[in-house]
């Protein structure tokens, strides 16, 4: 599909040509056919084949509705690399005609390879998928803008909610992965920032093995109380299980009668299919009509990334990746994302500032920042890495 477009393009910049004639502004959706994440503990948890992409497609239709009235047109070119592909090498041909605007549905390591590929120089990458702290800190890149809240923002969002509830004694239960360790460190950081206490911390090296069996519930019902039996009293169990190995087994299986928060139980998220405030209801409805399924957080990431391009091109009147980058970093940029306020990028790490939902599976419970958590600039900067503590040094 993309090669077709490249084939008909003149050697000159396709985007510039689009400004003269009503040619479609190209947006490249780039992903990789990653192996399925495996069987999830719950049968209700599914991974739609078009997750993320459907959100990007819906947003393309929406910005084309606006574009129709303004004589603007956008086209989403879908490029899904085979599993295990070398992203830098395989994406090189995409840039044969010059820099692009890319909506990246890539994991952190692949995103970095793309951003660092010499061929991608001058391109703009909207990261619609990752939540990794490292990409907003030491591994930040000047060409990359992050749409979804990172791990530290999520930990802070939950922390504010718990502190507001006066549930400030936390038992931290950490899974075996590197990402679990990052999130656990974020939870400790949040506790320090907001005056909560980690009264106990434990690692849990759970091997999920086969997740389907006919044996019943005895084993889990024995293992989880054992894993959560500690000497001290606490208010909530804060679980750090980024890959969904065991976290969903914890609610009602803990040794003490305490709620579970963190990566499972009560979670922090940019979007859930249950969210309906601030016109989110209309978005859920539109998405269901379009994709015939519920809208996930990754779909929202794709929707928001493409919507951001639409804002920059139609309101910001930018048509080059470099021009769009400058606009996204300017005071003039703002995008609406059903959070009741305009969303903007932090200049220091190019992370989208946003209120974060606090949700359990069927209900959104709250939205952080919570009332009373103040900031001299923007209250949403109470979530995640603020300017004074950033480790990101962007090359301009």
């Amino acid at each position, binding site marked *: 599909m993309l090669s077709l477009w490249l084939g008909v393009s003149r050697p000159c910049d396709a985007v510039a040509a689009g400004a003269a004639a009503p040619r479609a502004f190209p947006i490249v959706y780039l992903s990789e056919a990653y192996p399925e994440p495996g069987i999830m503990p719950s049968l209700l948890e599914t991974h739609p084949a078009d997750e993320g992409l459907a959100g990007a497609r819906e947003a393309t239709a*929406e910005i084309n*509705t*606006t574009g129709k*009235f*303004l004589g603007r047109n956008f086209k989403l070119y879908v490029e899904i690399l085979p599993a295990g592909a070398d992203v830098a090498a395989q994406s090189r041909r995409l840039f044969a005609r010059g820099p692009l605007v890319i909506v990246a549905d890539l994991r952190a390591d692949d995103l970095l390879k793309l951003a660092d590929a010499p061929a991608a120089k001058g391109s703009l990458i909207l990261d619609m998928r990752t939540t990794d702290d490292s990409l907003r800190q030491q591994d930040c890149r000047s060409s990359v803008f992050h749409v979804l809240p990172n791990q530290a923002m999520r930990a802070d969002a939950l922390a504010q909610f718990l502190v507001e509830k006066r549930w400030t004694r936390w038992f931290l239960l950490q899974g075996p992965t590197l990402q679990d360790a990052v999130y656990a460190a974020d939870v400790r950081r949040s506790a320090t920032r907001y005056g909560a206490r980690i009264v106990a911390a434990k690692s849990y090296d759970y091997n999920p093995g086969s997740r389907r069996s006919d044996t019943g519930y005895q084993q889990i019902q024995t293992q989880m109380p054992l894993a959560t039996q500690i000497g001290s009293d606490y208010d909530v169990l804060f679980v750090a299980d980024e890959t969904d190995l065991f976290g969903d087994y914890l609610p009602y299986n803990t040794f003490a009668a305490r709620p579970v928060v963190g990566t499972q139980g009560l979670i922090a998220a940019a979007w859930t299919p249950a969210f309906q405030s601030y*016109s989110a209801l*209309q978005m859920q*409805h*539109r998405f269901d009509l379009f994709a015939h399924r519920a809208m996930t957080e990754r779909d929202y990431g794709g929707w928001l990334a493409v919507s951001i391009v639409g*804002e920059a091109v*139609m*309101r910001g009147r930018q048509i080059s990746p470099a021009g769009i980058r400058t606009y996204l970093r300017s005071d003039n940029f*703002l*995008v*609406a994302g059903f959070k*009741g*306020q*305009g969303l903007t990028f932090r200049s220091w790490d190019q992370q989208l500032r946003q209120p974060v939902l606090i949700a359990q599976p069927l209900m959104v419970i709250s939205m952080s920042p919570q009332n009373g958590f103040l900031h001299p600039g*923007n*209250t*949403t900067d109470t979530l995640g890495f603020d300017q004074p503590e950033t480790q990101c040094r962007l090359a301009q």
Partner: protein
Amino acid sequence: MPSRAMTGGRTALLVSAVLSCSFAARARASELFVSNEVDNTVTVLDGDSYRIIATIPTDQRPRGIVETLDHKAVLVCDGDSSNIDVIDTKTLKVIRRINTGPDPETLAMSISGDKLYVSNENNALVTVIDYATGKWITQVQVGIEPEGLAVSKDGRTVVVASEETSMAHFIDTRTWQVVANVLVDTRPRVAVYTPDQRYLWVSSEVGGTVSVIDPKSHQIAHVINFDIPGVDKQYIGPVGLQFTGDGRTAFVALGRANRVAVVDARTYEVKQYILVGQRPWQLTFSPDRSKLYVANGLTNDVTIIDVSSLKAVKSVPVGRLPWGIAVIP
């Protein structure tokens, strides 16, 4: 979206009851009709005492609410029931339901009162309905999530603001064609013509501004910004707009900033911010325009502002999540 066949509105169930109603002299003062989005009710307040006279059950999710020109009825959009409830202002009962198509958010009446313009929020449509028969005259395709409607005094233009598309669409009422689209700041909610018809004001909730559009050239003549000491910019969400009769002063409800801005409509200077309840969206004048009524969504009340002193006089409780207000003399 494909065009759909026009279907007739639901027939009125109790039309005969209205017609047979005697025109007994009304000793009542003016009345406020407040739509309560969560309660599925309309609260009726006495315009002198602000006491609750009646709570009228409606269909699901009542939001946009207007009075008819003859004040005999108040019409309220029931978003989740795809219809308009017609409330008889004498009996304070729902006497008729008009089919609007999916998710009507708000409505406006034509200048002569013969037609209803309805924004179908989920379907990117404006549905034009013959008020007498309930029959659909046409549907006009507009931007995504259409909401606020404004009708020009000459009746020739209907403007609808579409939230997701961030535009004011100008519809010619003779051809039912969209003749102009003006990109405004993000998520426009309400559009209102100035009393002299020289400008159209459009509030942008997430953009935090009001765009002043020249309806002849369809160009934006001015953008009004709001700056409230001690209030974060992102909480300033302009929604409801009203002008004094002389057109000199505009009132703008600012949503989560919990204030109503008083704007000089000639210089565009913001003169004052009046603290009201939480998340004011829609606002309406009393019949003599001496009072301004503000629906506060999060505090479940209506704030009454004295227009001459620009002071909030009091707030009175209504139902849950009050959305809009209609007033009859």
